[in-house]
């Protein structure tokens, strides 16, 4: 069950390269196995964060103070494109990330964020660029504030930006709702749908091999 998200004031790290895919966020070999939860934080952004010899890449922003403690990412276009691996979100979460602000996200990554209590905020590219510039102007010392209830972001410069969000998803994050439990409350409706669909489309429901 996701942790609720309401307000956050934290260090924010701009990672502005476009098309950062989920393979870059977490490599596949870190995700092979059923006991991976809790092991992923140190491997988030592995190919950017570490040099080929395994040492930290001093140029990567999350390896620099004060960004090392960032709980917010400000990202370039199409962040989280690529695979459906929820491990990408888990690795960011285990790394301490609680919100991501960008002009657009991969569709599946975006959905996976909500499932884990991470807030992805979509704002215009001009707002993203302004936020990144404001953060860099304070060398990361200036914090970014996000208020989900009010749907606002406050930049280190004090500039306030509002954002849109699907009301259902907003409520789910604010309350930390468990979608499985909510849908199971509708199990009678699911069974009723299946009963009538079995008549309308029997070929969907009768899956015994016909050979």
């Amino acid at each position: 069950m996701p942790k609720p998200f309401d307000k956050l004031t934290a260090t924010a790290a701009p990672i502005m390269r476009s098309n950062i895919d989920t393979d870059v966020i977490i490599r596949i070999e870190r995700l092979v196995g059923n006991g991976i939860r809790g092991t992923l934080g140190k491997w988030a952004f592995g190919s950017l964060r570490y040099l080929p010899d395994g040492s930290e890449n001093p140029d990567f922003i999350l390896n620099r103070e004060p960004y090392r403690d960032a709980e917010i990412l400000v990202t370039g276009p199409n962040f989280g494109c690529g695979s459906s691996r929820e491990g990408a979100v888990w690795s960011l979460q285990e790394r301490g990330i609680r919100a991501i602000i960008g002009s657009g996200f991969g569709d599946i990554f975006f959905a996976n964020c909500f499932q884990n209590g991470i807030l992805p905020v979509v704002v215009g590219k001009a707002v993203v660029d302004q936020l990144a510039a404001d953060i860099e102007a304070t060398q990361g010392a200036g914090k970014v504030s996000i208020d989900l209830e009010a749907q606002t972001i406050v930049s280190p410069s004090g500039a306030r930006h509002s954002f849109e969000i699907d009301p259902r998803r907003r409520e789910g994050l604010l309350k930390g709702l468990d979608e499985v439990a909510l849908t199971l409350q509708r199990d009678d409706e699911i069974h009723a749908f299946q009963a009538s669909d079995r008549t309308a489309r029997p070929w969907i429901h009768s899956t015994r091999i016909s050979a």
Partner: protein
Amino acid sequence: MPGRSLLEKIWDQHVIARLSEDTDLLHIDRHLLHDLGGSRGLLDLKSRGLKVHNPELTFATPDHALSTAPGRAGTSKIGQELLAALRIETAASGITLFDVDQPGQGIVHVIGPELGLSLPGATIVCGDSHTCTHGGLGALAFGIGSSELTHVLATQALIQRRPKTLRARFEGELPLGVTAKDMILALIGQIGAAGGTGYAVEYAGSAIRALPIEGRLTICNLSIELGAKMGMVAPDEKTFEFLRGRPYAPQGEMWDRAVKAWRELPSDPDAVFDREVVIDVEKIIPQVTWGISPEHVVGVDGIIPDPKSVDDPARRAAIETALEYMGLQGGAPIAGTPIDWVFIGSCTNSRLSDLRAAAEVARGRKVAAGVRAWVVPGSENVKREAVAEGLDKIFIEAGFEWREPGCSMCLAANGEVVAPGQRSVSTSNRNFVGRQGPRARTHLASPASAAASAIAGAIADVRMMGRS
């Protein structure tokens, strides 16, 4: 009231409950599990004290973490554990498993259509982003994460926002040597890797109608590389002929009823799409990627972009980053770039028609010295059919390695990797940084182009090989 699109018709038929203006609880008709996430989901469900809602609508096969070496030698310990867990948990839940070496095993997006599990008008999900592949049969198919996977196991339903609709019309007659893979790469090059984000894409037009089903599956497979998690083609006579007689396709009187219903699915002539793109396929030449996103693509006779000639600083920086990773010079021709590897396989291009196209180029020729070339059939059935046709012999005689079915080097989950710094021409779907192994360099292309490159030892234009 305007007509409805293919997407809208399928969507409306699956609404169990309307949850808000644009969000519905949808029934899921087919849920496919694989070794990487399948047992994890089933164990997650068990830990919540829940049972699989409809095991008869759920099917499993190992593909991701399995060795594709002959005899399956070298599946990692963790891969073996995942396979064992998948066997135990599917058996305990009454889920059909297509196991190793059995007909039916294979890459999950190859076996769904092949077995007739994937049907027009069905909603199909899998914990894998390339689930959009099944849209080639006129299904509404999309990838889901682990949480949504557990949700589907528990409820046979999923909460989804209705996407916007994009129609991509491919018009004209496909030139010789140009394939479905080239069509979709060209579209990604045209509208970008985020061009389809938030949309369900319907592929239409004369060139789509003319494509065999396996080509349509390839087109839909790369929808996610456009940013669209759903891509689809309206079912037609070709679709029905493809499905007729497949093991899980309806039979007899039920087949007739199903086809009658499927004929109602294509978008109405007056359906309205949120966005429309038209592609003239007669201008498409074989495509090959040069960078680290599928949108970094050019015609094989083209030039690698030169960052010095790009004014926009963000775009210039992106090209520089990509060229540095790929070890390429901007402004140089892409053809002739020497390669170390060729990988023919993946859910994009590992079906029988793909192997035939590659074998046609490879027949009687030799893989260039210094190049390792793998052919990994998409499924056990594809493998057997290819062997029956003698395709394996053509590849082996030409110096290719003939492997067991699985995902293999597409995502390198099983230790099958391109070595650091080495360059591969791959028929797969992602040229991301490190996708085929740490610091591996991937060029995406069609099976025919990949085979031609293996022979040439460099990125090659298959149209110069004299057979296509």
